């Protein structure tokens, strides 16, 4: 999975990948104040097996919970299960549906995306990426976007959540890299000095098939030095 962090006021972005074996569940957001947690499970491409680290990986399952509302959503590339405790509703990506209750709104847009909002100020979008069913390698996967986080607390953490609060970084010493089209540079962030590479990723919110190019500084080695701790600190045993 490719992580993209857009930095407000900087007009720049930082990106990194997390490479883990299929089945791994990563904590993306955790906010003890609002009670919201988001996790994502990695799946491999059609060639990979459970121990494979070499194939392509994607998010195949996402979990969103709100502990205070006793509410959870499980999203896979096939279906969406949401509800409270044992009272769960199951929907398909073929549905177009809006589910509302006090402080919550979930909208599924058939075969495209779904929007999960907790009141004003917290809103996530999940994109369904569908590939050709008979593709020899790739399979359907999910994208997760935080479109509004201003009601999330300062204590929010997780691979994405730790970046909701303003942070500073500096990039200097731009120099040719191993790929002439992608210069390297030095980034100072969170008291670390990192070698980063200019690259690009795609934002698929507007168009899930083509996407919009986002230029970013790529942090190598699973975001080491950018993220707090190491990426394995964010591995959790299960989606919920």
């Amino acid at each position, binding site marked *: 999975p490719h992580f993209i962090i857009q930095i407000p006021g900087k007009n720049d972005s930082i990106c990194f990948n997390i490479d883990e074996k299929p089945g791994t569940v990563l904590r993306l957001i955790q906010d003890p104040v609002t009670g919201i947690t988001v996790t994502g499970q990695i799946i491999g491409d059609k060639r990979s097996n459970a121990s494979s680290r070499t194939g392509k990986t994607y998010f195949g399952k996402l979990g969103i919970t709100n502990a205070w509302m006793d509410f959870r959503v499980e999203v896979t590339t096939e279906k969406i299960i949401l*509800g*409270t405790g044992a*009272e*769960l*509703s*199951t*929907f*398909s990506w*073929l*549905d*177009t*549906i*809006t*589910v*509302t*209750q006090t402080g*919550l709104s979930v909208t599924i847009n*058939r075969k495209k995306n779904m929007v999960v909002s907790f009141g004003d100020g917290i809103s996530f979008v999940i994109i369904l990426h569908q590939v050709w069913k008979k593709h020899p390698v790739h399979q359907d996967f999910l994208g997760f976007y935080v479109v509004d986080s201003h009601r999330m607390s300062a204590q929010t953490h997780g691979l994405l959540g730790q970046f909701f609060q303003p942070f500073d970084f500096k990039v200097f010493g731009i120099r040719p890299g191993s790929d002439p089209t992608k210069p390297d540079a030095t980034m100072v962030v969170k008291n670390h000095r990192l070698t980063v590479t200019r690259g690009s990723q795609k934002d698929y919110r507007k168009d899930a098939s083509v996407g919009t190019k986002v230029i970013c500084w790529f942090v190598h080695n699973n975001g080491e030095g950018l993220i707090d701790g190491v990426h394995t600190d964010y591995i959790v045993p299960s989606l919920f």
Partner: protein
Amino acid sequence: SLPEGVVDGIEVYSTKISCKVTSRFAHNVVTTRAVNRADTAKEVSFDVELPKTAFITNFTLTIDGVTYPGNVKEKEVAQKQYEKAVSQGKTAGLVKASGRKLEKFTVSVNVAAGSKVTFELTYEELLKRNKGKYEMYLKVQPKQLVRHFEIDAHIFEPQGISMLDAEASFITNDLLGSALTKSFSGKKGHVSFKPSLDQQRSCPTCTDSLLNGDFTIVYDVNRESPGNVQIVNGYFVHFFAPQGLPVVPKNIVFVIDVSGSMSGRKIQQTREALLKILDDVKEDDYLNFILFSTDVTTWKDHLVQATPANLKEAKTFVKNIHDQSMTNINDGLLKGIEMLNKAREDHTVPERSTSIIIMLTDGDANTGESRPEKIQENVRNAIGGKFPLYNLGFGNNLNYNFLETLALENHGLARRIYEDSDANLQLQGFYEEVANPLLTNVEVEYPENAILDLTRNSYPHFYDGSEIVVAGRLVDRNMDNFKADVKGHGALNDLTFTEEVDMEEMDAALKEQGYIFGDYIERLWAYLTIEQLLEKRKNAKGDEKENITAEALDLSLKYHFVTPLTSMVVTKPEDNEDQTSIADKPGEEAIAETTTMSFLTTQQSSQSPYYYVDGD
């Protein structure tokens, strides 16, 4: 020596039931061909039992190659012909209620020696989804061996068929196996039942037929999406049946008639049914029992949660239900309604729950307030449209129309429980239908100014295993896309389902619709509109009733449906005078009166023969 299958000189050499179902709308044609092999003229009878929910759309007689078509006429017009026939001393009942689900169509004609006759009856019905499947019910009763007997059903469902099965009550699976073929793939399904003469025999050396009973085809469709909209020739139909939703908790009050007339088997069957129902009540539900005879007694003072301890206590209470004295429907119902209202006001039941009242009675109110109009008014005012009332009429000794009106006025429905060995199963079956509400206050909305002539689009409940069907007409039949929203309250949250139809995509999906019959959506819309108008008419009064009647009559005549407002007349010129048959549709209230309808087979040769019906 007469060929096999000849009874009293008449050989019925072919009977074919041809069914074509497109998107739940069934178009059935029953054709029987017979020849008179006797030396003298003989009477040939044609009996068909068809579902009560079906409308006859055509009946033709073909005698010696000449076809006499049927014409649908306003009942009063047909009535005049009927009266003329009566004055000549001849009547014939063509259609009458028959059993629980069926109406019987009967006609006879005199056929000259050596002549052939073909009877062809066409009827249409919308198959309603119940407990997760559509059921097409065909009565098979040829009464003699038929050289060519065939049921041939073709089903076309644009959503794709998920299961298809067929079974016959009168034949063992071993015998059925070779005569029955059933298959489905994608959007198409096919069932064929074609028993040979030998397979029809009740025993290897018998000359009588074992074909006598029910032939049932059941199927369901794929539901990748909760809704499905189909548009053809400017008419649309919207099917809605979401899956995977949790059940909305129920607050249910059973109002049970324990008057003297319930004594014996009825009260025993009621007890058995209630005990079974208690096994199925979910812990989230709240319930109570109100018993009424001359007085009203209750199990509890208020609704209680269906905890294991409460259910155990409820079962003890039910086991001790006994019959006594008179029938005070008014007080029984009002007590139940008051309890449900109070539970809601006091917040003693879950906020996101739905209330239901089910009344079971076997007779008319005869103590306390016994005027039907006053009871209706009291109940209507007490419920105030807040929840549905379901009325179960046990047996025939009751004013079913009253129960139906009472239920319809309060967003519910009435159901007749037939006095039979399986009455307890009928009661349980009804409960199962309403036991799992998935949505409440369902509203189906379409773009403003885009549609006309919409059928009913709001329902108090959507029950698991059922389906909501809405049909209408597009203002602009060339529109590019079409959007429908279905809003409802679920167990946990409010839901809005949106169905967007891309006309090009849909045209591609329906391109095979010519495979069945092209105008099915328009006819389905007409069927549904008439059915709902007739239901609405039951509660209407004065000008409103007149307007509804006029509208339903116009549609019945335009679309050639035999409804309670129309009759079908078949006229055959004979000896310079007309021979006329009329097909009518009896209502549910006609059940108790079936014996009053007669069919006279003896005719005076000096007078021209008439075939007639006396409906409701």
